[in-house]
């Protein structure tokens, strides 16, 4: 275990490292500036557990109905040697008839060893790549690996990689519907970035066998129910952009040392469990430790990260909590209290209530704040004028009644 690994292990504490999956890796791309998240993910911290123990349980849950539907659709598409998927691939992508192989790379004969499965996956994929269509078409439950922050994350996607004209395409099966050729944009975007994660992992698996990255196409296949039925439809997605973002993100995580250097040496999120596994550390103490690592909270965290409620509470009184654009619109000022001070007494009712983080009280305003102050003063003045003015305009005989 090298130095970085040791430091990360110390931060994680005695808990088992949380394994990544494509969803969590994809989420890494969403808030690149957050050190707290970067450190926790690199160390494999169980974020939901930590958040809950610190008093801010995450708002994410999954409905049994959605899970059941997703599983049922996937099972249906993959049934009988993936007959329905094969039909889609033939119809939409011109897969030649002889290419109808189906290999299940799932659990091998009762042995759950992930290394074994991964080895078998690599072997079969390599053989398929070498044979150009004779030895493999569709690969179900392949076990791939991606290096994230010095640790390997095993990825077991519900994807099937297949080969067309010597190139592999990642296939993602999702149960949200495509209606009249259109689907929910956010869901498609999420599927695209997850597919990109698999592309990277598949390229890595083949690279170990000296097979070039181009062997894995940047075009992935998304399979969804069509309209209101359970019949599947396929669409191709170009994930080059997502690949670029992901590679950048993963390289940042690889340089986690830079972040770790800023942290106090003894920092840990360990819960100090007793013999029965009951945590002994006080939640307040844990919260203090969490705060040692800077977060970059934005409201979008509420849909992507389990620490969101904790960080949101911490960010109360910051303009960033009001929206991504809010801080910029307020002249780049960081704290609400500062905004209100710069805006002047005009337009700010002196009512009590609400916690506001302390601003830069007592220090003279920096030159860059002067411009913000000017903007905010003007804004406050205009607002006050508009709110207290009487009729905004005089009525005239020339105007027709509205």
């Amino acid at each position, binding site marked *: 275990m090298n130095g970085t690994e040791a430091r990360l292990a110390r931060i994680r504490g005695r808990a088992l490292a949380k394994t990544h999956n494509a969803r969590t890796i994809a989420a890494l791309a969403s808030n690149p500036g957050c050190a707290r998240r970067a450190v926790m993910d690199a160390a494999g911290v169980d974020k939901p557990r930590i958040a809950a123990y610190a008093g801010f349980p995450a708002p994410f*849950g*999954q*409905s*049994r*109905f*959605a899970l*059941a*539907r*997703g599983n049922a659709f996937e099972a249906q598409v993959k049934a009988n040697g993936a007959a329905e998927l094969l039909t889609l691939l033939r119809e939409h992508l011109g897969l030649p008839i002889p290419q109808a192989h189906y290999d299940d790379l799932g659990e091998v004969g009762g042995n759950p060893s992930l290394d074994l499965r991964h080895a078998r996956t690599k072997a079969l994929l390599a053989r398929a790549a070498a044979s150009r269509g004779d030895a493999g078409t569709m690969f179900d439950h392949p076990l791939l690996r991606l290096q994230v922050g010095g640790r390997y994350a095993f990825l077991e996607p519900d994807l099937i990689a297949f080969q067309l004209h010597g190139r592999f395409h990642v296939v993602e099966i999702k*149960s949200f*519907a495509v*209606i*009249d050729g259109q689907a929910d944009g956010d869901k498609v975007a999420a599927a695209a970035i997850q597919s990109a994660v698999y592309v990277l992992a598949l390229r890595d698996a083949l690279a170990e066998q000296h097979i070039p990255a181009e062997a894995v196409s940047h075009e992935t296949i998304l399979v969804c*129910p069509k*309209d*209101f*039925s*359970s*019949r599947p439809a396929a669409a191709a997605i170009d994930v080059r952009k997502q690949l670029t973002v992901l590679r950048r993100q993963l390289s940042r995580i690889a340089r986690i040392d830079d972040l770790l250097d800023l942290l106090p040496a003894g920092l840990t999120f360990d819960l100090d469990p007793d013999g029965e596994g009951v945590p002994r550390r006080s939640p307040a103490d844990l919260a203090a430790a969490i705060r040692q690592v800077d977060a970059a909270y934005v*409201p*979008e965290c*509420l849909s992507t990260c389990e620490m969101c409620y904790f960080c949101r509470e911490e960010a*109360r*009184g910051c*303009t960033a909590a*009001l*929206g991504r*654009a*809010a801080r910029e*619109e*307020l*002249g780049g000022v960081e704290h*609400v*209290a500062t*905004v*209100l001070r710069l*805006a002047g007494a005009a337009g*700010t*009712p002196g*009512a*009590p*209530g*609400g916690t*506001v983080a302390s601003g830069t009280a007592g220090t003279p305003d920096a030159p860059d704040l002067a411009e913000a102050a000017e903007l*905010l003063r003007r*804004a*406050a003045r*205009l*607002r006050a*004028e*508009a*709110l207290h*003015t009487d009729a*905004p*305009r*005089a009525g*005239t005989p*020339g*105007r027709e009644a*509205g």
Partner: protein
Amino acid sequence: MSTLTSLARAVAVAAGTAQRTCTVRHVHVGARPLVFVPLALAGEAGAPLAAMAGADPQAPTLLVVAEPRDRDQRFAFAADLAAVVLRYVEGYLAAEEDTPGREQATRYADAPQLLVPNPAGIAFTRLLGRSTRFRRTEGPYAVPASVPLLGRWLTFFAERAESPASSLMLAATDMLAAHWATGQSPVEDLNLGALLGWIDPPPGMSGAQAAAMAEDPVRCPPAGPATDPTFDNEVLDQRMLAVRTARLAGDGRAYERARAALAEALATQLRPTWALMWRAVALLRGLPGGEHVRARWDADKDAFTWHARHVAAGGPPQPRRDGAVAAARRLAGLERVQEMVAAQRAFDDPLVMAEHRLAGEAFAGTVTAAEPDRVDRGGPRAVLRPRITVETGDEPRADRGATFTSPARPGQQARIVAVTAAGGRTRIVLELRGGMGRSLTPQPGSVPAVGESVSYAAFGDGYQPAPAFPAPEDTPWTHGGPPAPYVPSDEEAREDWS
């Protein structure tokens, strides 16, 4: 958002309650809107689970699908919903009013209005309309006639909701967030309970505290259509299993009991949102309406009239996809409408106009000099061209020759003649034309007088002509050629509902 709105949010944080971003209401709120709160089954496209609907806050209709995977029960739900919605819409088909100078001589005197909790509710309505409007009333997959009719009306409402000028269908979160700034982010404003918590917190509680309570899905069920996963997993799953078990066992009494228990469980998820919806309506009714709201509602009445007559005359349902020309036209149309509505909101509302003043697109000040009788004899005819000088503290981007309009005199154009700085303030000379009568003497009051407070914007509220698009039959081949006329197909009637 803009600086003023963000500032209002900052103020809200300190004050502990939401701050107004408008002095008037910019949407129409009908005397009798139909509130529709749908719940969808997780994991399916627009699969209805339950709904509460009605125009009377004291008497909601509760609709429940006991077994959402059962096709027949889904369509029974649609038929029940149709009974509520169609009866409501029909109430507006009685009274008509004259519309002189328009294409159609009369239109309906008022139009229905559909209110849902949030944008996801609008999307759900659109999906429900899409899944029902192509159904057939005879043949192997027959549904009651009210179902495709419901589908066409729901699609109509959902399509109108796309236009910023329309109030035929509105999401409560959109309506409220357009008029108030909370101390949280726009993302959190999508939670109707949290939004109302900021705008109208219970006594003794701050906006933030009320919003936090609203985020607890056990205390405050989500407004839907998505249900809370813990509700699905701990309550709904069991209730539906009981229904299924009773049905399979052939036990009629147990089936009724199970069905009633399921309905009650779903009602617990709907009633709180129902109450929130009517609170939202009351809050908006409390604001005075903006001047242009009535004209926009008139356009809505036109659209409603057109659609009702189209349906009654046996016209086809809305096609699945727009042809290329229709799509381009629709997009361009929405952009123009967006600009028009933005301008009208500014004209109606000094607080909205203030945003434009801050951005340099408008200014307000006092008239310091005026030549109301100035006549320009330079051209072929003598024309009345009064000039006024306005002194303002604003810093507008006003180039010489640019045309501005005043909300007080929207029919009048004001051309910038000169802009000079004067001791920290700006002095602008404007030349006016129009809106003063026919003669060379302006009608009284049509020219601003010295000492009058005025405001001018670099945009007008008027209608802009549509860009020229080819007729649909002339769609160029690059865009797929002319669209084929719509012929209802067996495929559509047969579409599985899962």
